[in-house]
């Protein structure tokens, strides 16, 4: 019944200076959801790019239904029935949803003229199938992060594919969308298609995948049936050792209020948001797509300008009009979009890590290379960044390692208030545990932390209190002991209001 | 390495810009003179765009290679003074021709003709074409083109004469020596002055574009055009009557005379002082006047009858 559709044999991919993949074998069968597992930088995305014709392998061959194929461009792979959702954002922000979905394989009338009507209609069908309330003519730049991701999924579905590859498709989705996605994946599976699913979240893997393959350091390690394996086994294959428990929340003495936000509003994004943050506290922020959590944080950090409301820091009302001022007040913000906002991709790791405090470490404006080196090494090593050296550009790193660079860069500023917006998005289990441990240690040492996350277990496991947002306002604030997944989700979906 | 002085006499004709038929003809004249003189080499140079800065750059390299003499048609009468002085200090003889450098920046200024003469001749030409009455406009090159400006000021002077009492200059516009802008300005003049009788365009690009505009707008015979134009470029419009007559001095003679004057100065035959007389081959003798000015004669008038003959020369 299940037959092999795509086979990778002895694949290697070298980049100048690094072997991203070496001697890799990988077999995909129809009617099966195949999980590709590995640490950050293991080579998963590289493999995806090879399977989709974006990269050509340095060595090895690709067999499609038994015969050797050569994917010279993404086009070839698509024509052969391979569709993919890539890890990196790959949207045309100035174009419409319809166009984003059909770019590269526009529908055409007989004469070759593009058939916009048909494409629009198709798009509408796809959006309906994903239960998305988006107009096909909306420009992508007017969509939120999660909606964009859903459009990417729709795009992969628009191709009549035999094999659908999803590289961390859920990293920007919230619960509802993830459920939709599962439904779609099951449908595809039932239609006899093959799916490759990449994720760092084990609950997802165990929920949806049938089979798994593990990579480490660009090499094939092993494979197996999901049903007959345990998390621990897989983690051991991944990192070569077992891990402790996932959310090591340390007890911390919660001190006086450091940040008091009252009636904060930004028209079009959020309204009348109030909350208090204490020393030593981890304040979780949970909500669905477009709930406006990111915008609240951006406003506190001085990127967006509030229209109403007050921000009181240590008893004094403050007016923050730029990130610089926010930083001077001891606020640090790790943004959610690492490619656009977090890391400067064409700059070296060391320059990235020291950028926020470059003035502080430059006496009279003159750079001090020694201090720079010290800081880079201290925090780079703390975050266990995997790179050839500190001088390589951030864009040569795997997605997860880029995220670590962003974290390192902000932790290095030694803030009083640390705002983390989806800090573990795309980070592998081992590092995630390290990040959690680190955050909880810092809170215990008196740091006030805001943790914005769409991952419910993370919020429940890490936060002392949880602020739940729904459509731009705070719908509920829950203490650690009274919060559970049910009441948080109810509040997030707007079914339960009040404080 | 070669010794520079053994190369003979190097004289450079530095023109406003390359790619202009007028100056190509000047270069021909220079070559002709150099051929007649013993051991003289005539080098033709110019910047690719007509700027003073470009000419200064070239003069600096000419100083570096110690040429013997430079004849300059200047893009700016003042901006070239410092560098020309530098050249003279380095022992290079400097004269200007066609478009002159102000006093102090050259030893001799060879004007193709007297500016006053040019101005009054242009006025006479247009007056003859439109029967001594009507509105006249002037379409010049750039606002900064000094020789044009000088001629224009003399045109205003000339119009004060009683025979032109029924004529007036309504406006001076600038076509920047670009075909499209000149054309547009000409059309703008037709619009603004429906009774316009004639246009004087003392620049080769302007006169050509204006003639074309008159032809295109069907105003042939209604609006007259005269100016300074190259016969080879204007032949079409003179033969078909769009432009009744126009004037120009002979660029070949200009280049020819420049070389003769410089050669005489370099050889020490004359010092270039007022009153000096230079024998200039087929041009006869040239006398240097007050302030180093020297004038070749009245511009030549071209019309239907003689245009074909000169079109083949320049």
């Amino acid at each position, binding site marked *: 019944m299940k037959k092999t559709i795509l086979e990778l044999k002895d694949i290697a991919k070298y980049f100048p200076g690094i072997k991203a993949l070496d001697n890799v074998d990988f077999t995909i069968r129809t009617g099966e959801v195949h999980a590709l597992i590995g640490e950050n930088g293991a080579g998963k995305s590289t493999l995806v790019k090879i399977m989709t014709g974006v990269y050509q392998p340095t060595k090895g061959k690709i067999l499609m239904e038994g015969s050797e194929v050569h994917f010279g461009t993404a*086009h070839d792979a698509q024509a052969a029935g391979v569709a993919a959702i890539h890890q990196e954002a790959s949207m045309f922000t100035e174009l419409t949803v319809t166009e984003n979905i059909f*770019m590269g394989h526009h529908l055409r009338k007989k004469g070759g003229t593009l058939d916009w009507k048909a494409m629009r209609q198709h798009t509408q069908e796809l959006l309906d199938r994903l239960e998305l309330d988006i107009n096909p003519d909306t420009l992508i730049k007017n969509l939120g992060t999660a909606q964009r991701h859903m459009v990417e999924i729709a795009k992969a579905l628009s191709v009549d594919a035999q094999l659908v590859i999803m590289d961390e498709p859920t990293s920007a989705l919230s619960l509802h969308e993830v459920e939709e996605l599962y439904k779609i994946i099951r449908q595809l599976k039932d239609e006899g298609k093959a799916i490759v699913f990449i994720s760092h979240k084990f609950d997802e893997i165990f929920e949806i995948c049938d089979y798994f393959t593990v990579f480490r350091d660009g090499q094939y390690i092993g494979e197996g049936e999901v049903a007959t394996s345990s998390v621990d086994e897989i983690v051991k294959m991944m990192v070569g050792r077992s891990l402790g428990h996932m959310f090591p929340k340390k007890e911390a003495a919660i001190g006086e209020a450091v940040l008091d936000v009252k009636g904060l509003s930004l028209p079009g994004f959020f309204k009348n948001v109030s909350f208090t943050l204490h020393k030593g506290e981890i304040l979780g922020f949970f909500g669905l797509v477009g709930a406006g959590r990111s915008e609240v944080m951006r406003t506190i950090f001085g990127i967006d300008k509030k229209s109403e409301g007050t921000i009181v820091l240590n008893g004094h009302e403050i007016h923050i009009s730029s990130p610089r001022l926010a930083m001077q007040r001891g606020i640090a913000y790790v943004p959610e979009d690492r490619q656009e906002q977090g890391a400067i991709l064409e700059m070296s790791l060391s320059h990235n890590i020291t950028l926020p405090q470059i003035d502080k470490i430059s006496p009279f404006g003159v750079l001090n290379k020694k201090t720079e080196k010290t800081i880079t090494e201290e925090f780079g090593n703390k975050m266990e960044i995997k790179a050839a050296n500190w001088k390589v550009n951030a864009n040569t790193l795997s997605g997860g390692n880029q995220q670590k660079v962003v974290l390192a860069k902000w932790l290095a500023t030694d803030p009083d208030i640390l705002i983390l917006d989806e800090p573990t998005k795309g980070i592998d289990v081992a590092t995630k545990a390290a990040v959690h441990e680190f955050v909880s240690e810092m809170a215990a040492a008196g740091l006030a932390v805001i943790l914005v996350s769409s991952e419910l277990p993370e919020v429940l496991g890490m936060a002392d209190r949880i602020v739940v947002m729904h459509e*731009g306002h705070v719908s509920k604030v829950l203490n650690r002991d009274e919060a559970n997944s049910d009441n948080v989700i109810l509040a997030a979906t707007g079914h339960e209001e009040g404080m | 390495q070669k010794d520079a002085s053994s190369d003979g006499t190097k004289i450079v004709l530095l023109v406003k810009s390359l790619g*202009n038929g007028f100056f190509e003809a000047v270069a021909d004249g220079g070559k002709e003179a150099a051929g007649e003189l013993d051991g003289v080499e005539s080098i033709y140079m110019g910047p690719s765009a007509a700027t003073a800065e470009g000419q200064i750059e070239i003069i600096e390299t000419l100083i570096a290679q110690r040429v013997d003499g430079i004849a300059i048609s200047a893009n700016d009468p003042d901006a070239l003074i410092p560098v020309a002085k530098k050249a003279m200090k380095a022992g290079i003889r400097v004269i200007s021709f066609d478009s002159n450098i102000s006093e102090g920046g050259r030893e001799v200024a060879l004007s193709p003709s007297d500016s006053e003469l040019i101005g009054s001749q242009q006025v006479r030409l247009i007056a003859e074409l439109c029967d001594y009455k009507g509105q006249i406009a002037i379409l010049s090159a750039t606002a900064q083109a000094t020789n044009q400006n000088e001629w224009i000021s003399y045109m205003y002077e000339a119009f004060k004469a009683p025979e032109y009492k029924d004529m007036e200059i309504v406006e001076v516009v600038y076509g920047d020596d670009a075909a499209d802008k000149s054309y547009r300005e000409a059309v703008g003049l037709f619009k603004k002055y429906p009774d316009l009788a004639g246009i004087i365009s003392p620049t080769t690009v302007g006169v050509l574009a204006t003639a074309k505009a008159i032809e295109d707008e069907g105003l042939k015979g209604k609006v007259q055009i005269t100016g300074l134009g190259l016969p080879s470029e204007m032949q079409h419009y003179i033969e078909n009557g769009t432009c009744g007559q126009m004037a120009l001095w002979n660029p070949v003679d200009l280049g020819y005379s420049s070389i003769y004057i410089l050669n005489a100065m370099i050889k020490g035959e004359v010092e270039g002082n007022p009153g000096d007389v230079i024998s200039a081959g087929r041009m006869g003798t040239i006398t240097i006047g007050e302030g180093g000015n020297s004038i070749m004669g009245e511009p030549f008038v071209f019309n239907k009858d003689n245009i074909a003959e000169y079109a083949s020369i320049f």
Partner: protein
Amino acid sequence: MKKSIEKILQNRELNLVGLIIILLILVTIRSPRFLELRNVERIVNDTAILIMVAAGQFLVILTGGIDLSVGSTIAFSGMAASMLNEAYPAMPVYLILLIGVLVGTALGAFNGSCVAFGKIPPIITTLGTMSIFRGFTFVLSKGQWVTAHEMTSAYTMIPRGRLFGIPNLTTWAIFIFIIMYYFVKYTRHGREIYAIGGNKTAAHFVGVSEKKVNFMVFTISGALCGLAGVMWTARYAAAVNETATGFELQTVAACVLGGVSIAGGSGTITGVLLGALFLGIINNALPVVNLSPFYQMAIQGFIVLAAIVANVLMEQRNEKKLLNRRRQ
């Protein structure tokens, strides 16, 4: 409601139409005969060459590049065509036109190869070829001009003839506009230009070849310059070495005024058309309004700046409105 909001956002063109109307009113106050039909026709005709070349520039800017060599390409192909006409007066003019276009295409393809295969940034490539092509124009012409006398009347009639009462030059511009409109909106290659300009990585992921697109846009731009070169020399009945010097900035200005993003990925050909007309109106109005010619340059600069600022302000206001309407 959503639809109408989107419309507000996308009415860049409408803003520009408004600005053009304001400009026309201002000019007409000073010079009442400016809006006569005959004069309007003349202005459009005078802007036709700018429209053609700006259409090519538009494609290049859409990819995030810029073509600074358009002026020189026009000069070279115009010179080549005129010299051909001079040398072989019997050659059918439409063959010469075709050759002129081919010459422009070849020069454009050279730019395109440098950018696509040599990976030289467009601005450097075309900054280089701006000089190179101009230099070769001098070489080709040996510094001489080709003027009315040396051209056949058939040649000078290419832009001047009329079809249904409309000057050929205008017809050509309309034709180019329609083709371009269809090309960028209804063909795969046209959309791929937007893809490359919008997000190169994403374009790579969907199999759009950056090389192909870059090569294509420069070649098209070159072809349009070739056409413009023939039109230019025939219209002014003169092929000179300085033809269209500085024209590249006019075409870029037309695109910028028309709302084409200089970073690539967004803009419409309608906007470019309006931007070109805006410039064309200024160019033709300045000589007829009663102002000292010395003021022309400053006024032109001021109006262009004012238009750009007004455009930006209107757009920012629209965006704010849109935000305020969402989620009251």
